[in-house]
C-alpha cells in the first residue's frame, strides 16, 4: 500500500497520523496528570479525610469531599426529575404531529441547544433565585435553584433526543398496533414507549452527563456553601463549582493544591462511567 503512495499522499498520511496520535497522547496525559496529583494528595492526607470526609477546610488541612459529591448528585437528580417528564410529554405530543410541524419543533429546540450555559445561569440569577427566595424565605441561592436551571438547560437536548427516539419507531409497527384495535394511547404506551425505552434511557444518560459536568450556570445560583446540604433550599456546592472556587485559593505549591486533581479525577471517573453505561444501553436497543 504505502509504496504505491505518491509524495503528496505520504505527506498527508503523516499529517493525519500525527494528529490522531497527539489526540491519544493528550487524552492519556490529562488522565495521567490528574492521577499523579491525586496519588500525591492521597499519600499525604489519606482517604478518610478526603473521599469520605464531611468537612472541607483546606486551610486547616481538612478536605472532606462528600458535600460536593452529594451536591453534584442532588443537583443533577433534580434536573433529571424535572426535565425527563417534560421532555417526554413534549416528545409524545410531537410524535402525532405532521412531519412539517415536527420539523419546526426540532428547529426551535436546536436553536435552544445553542444557548450558552452562562445565559441560563443569568436567567437563574434573575428569575429562579428571587422566586425561591420569595417562596421559601431563604436566600434563594440553593441546590434547588441550580437543579432547576440545569433542568431548563438540558431540556432542549433531552427533548430533541426523545423526539428522535420516538419518531424512529417503525410505521409498520404503529399501524400493526392500530390495526389490532389499539387506541392511539395504547399504541403510545404499549408499543412506541416500550420499543424506545433504551433510546430514551440513552437520552437521559446524555442529559445526566451534561448536568453533572456543567459549572458556570450552577456556580451562579448555588450559593457556594461547602457543608453537606440540609435541604433543597439550602445553598451548597458541587465538584465542578468547587474546582472553580478553589482554583485561586489553592494555587500550585500550596499544601492541598492537589485536592483539585482529586475532584477533577472523580468527575472524570463519573463521566467515564456514564459513557460505559451509554455503550451498554446502545447494545441493548433493538
Amino acid at each position, binding site marked *: 500500500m504505502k509504496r504505491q503512495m505518491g509524495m503528496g499522499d505520504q505527506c498527508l498520511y503523516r499529517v493525519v497520523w500525527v494528529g490522531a496520535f497527539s489526540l491519544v497522547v493528550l487524552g492519556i496525559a490529562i488522565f495521567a496528570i490528574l492521577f499523579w496529583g491525586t496519588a500525591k494528595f492521597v499519600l499525604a492526607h489519606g482517604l478518610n479525610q478526603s473521599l469520605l470526609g464531611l468537612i472541607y477546610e483546606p486551610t486547616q488541612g481538612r478536605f472532606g469531599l462528600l458535600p460536593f459529591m452529594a451536591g453534584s448528585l442532588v443537583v443533577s437528580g433534580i434536573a433529571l426529575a424535572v426535565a425527563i417528564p417534560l421532555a417526554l410529554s413534549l416528545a409524545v405530543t410531537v410524535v402525532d404531529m*405532521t412531519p412539517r410541524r415536527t420539523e419546526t419543533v426540532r428547529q426551535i429546540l436546536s436553536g435552544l441547544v445553542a444557548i450558552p450555559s452562562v445565559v441560563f445561569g443569568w436567567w437563574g440569577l434573575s428569575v429562579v433565585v428571587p422566586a425561591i427566595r420569595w417562596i421559601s424565605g431563604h436566600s434563594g441561592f440553593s441546590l434547588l435553584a441550580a437543579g432547576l436551571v440545569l433542568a431548563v438547560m438540558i431540556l432542549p437536548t433531552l427533548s430533541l433526543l426523545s423526539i428522535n427516539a420516538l419518531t424512529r419507531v*417503525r410505521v*409498520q*409497527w404503529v*399501524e*400493526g*398496533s*392500530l*390495526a*389490532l*384495535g*389499539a*387506541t392511539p394511547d*395504547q399504541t403510545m404506551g*404499549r*408499543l412506541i414507549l*416500550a*420499543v424506545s425505552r433504551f433510546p430514551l434511557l440513552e437520552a437521559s444518560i446524555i442529559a445526566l452527563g451534561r448536568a453533572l459536568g456543567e459549572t458556570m450556570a450552577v456556580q451562579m445560583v448555588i450559593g457556594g456553601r461547602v457543608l453537606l446540604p440540609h435541604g433543597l433550599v439550602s445553598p451548597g456546592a458541587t465538584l465542578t463549582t468547587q474546582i472553580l472556587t478553589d482554583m485561586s485559593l489553592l494555587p500550585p505549591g500550596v499544601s492541598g493544591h492537589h485536592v483539585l486533581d482529586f475532584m477533577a479525577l472523580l468527575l472524570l471517573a463519573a463521566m467515564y462511567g456514564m459513557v460505559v453505561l451509554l455503550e451498554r444501553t446502545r447494545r441493548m436497543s*433493538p
Partner: protein
Amino acid sequence: MNTKPAPDLVVQNLSVHYGEQVALKDVTLQIEGGQILALIGPSGCGKSTFLRVLNRLVDRSAEAHCTGEVFLGDTRVLDPKTDVVALRRAVGMVFQQPSAFPFSVFDNVAYGPRLQGVRSASRLRSLVESSLKQAALWDEVRGKLRRPAASLSGGQQQRLCIARALAVSPEVLLLDEPTAALDPLSTAKIEELILALRGDYTFVLVTHNLQQAARVSDVTAFFRQGRLIEIAPTRDMFTAPKCEETEEFLTGRYE
C-alpha cells in the same frame, strides 16, 4: 374458533381522494361472507388504499377524504359514528413487510388480547397457543415462545402476524401482499394457510402475484388507475376476461 359468521362486504360508489389526487374512483363491488377476494392491478392502482379503507387506517392520512358507502355485515365502515377501535378488532390486517413487533413471539400474539384487558396468564397462554395453531406456526415455535420474534424467518414472522391478527377473533382479514417479501416455500405455506381458513373469515387479499390470485381466491377484482375495471369469479376472470384491459394485464402486456 370464530363463532361469528364472516360478514358480507358491500362497497357502493367508494371514492378516495388524497388532497387533489384521486386514489379510488366510484368503486362498487360485493362479496359474500367467507369468500376470498383478490385485488390485482398495476402498482398505484388503488388496491392498498381500498384495503386501508376497510379498517379505516386511511384515516391516518390527514388529507384522505372518502365518499360512498362500505358495509361489513351491518357495520357502516365510513360512518363517522362508527367505533374505529371496534371495527379494527373485527378486521385484522397483515402487511407486506413482516411487521412483527420487536417483542417475544408470545408477546406479539398476546398484544391484541391484552389490549382488550385479558390479564389471566392461563387464558393468554391458551389464546396464544390456539392462534399459533390456527396460523400453522405452533409446531415450529413451541418451546421458543419467549424468543424475540425477530429470530424467526421471514415466512414464520408473516405467519406470526397472521396469528397475532387471529388472536383478537376478527371476522375479516385484510392481507396486503403478504408474500411479496417471501421465498416460494414460505409463500406456499401462507397460501395453504389462507385456504385452510377460508370460510371462517372474509378475506381481502392484495397481490402482485397473479398465480397466487388464481390459486387461492374465489373472486378477483382488477383495478387500474383507481377504477374497478372488472370483478368476476376467479376462474372466469382468468379463463375468459370480459374486458380487453384485463386480458392485456393478465397476459403481461403491461404492468
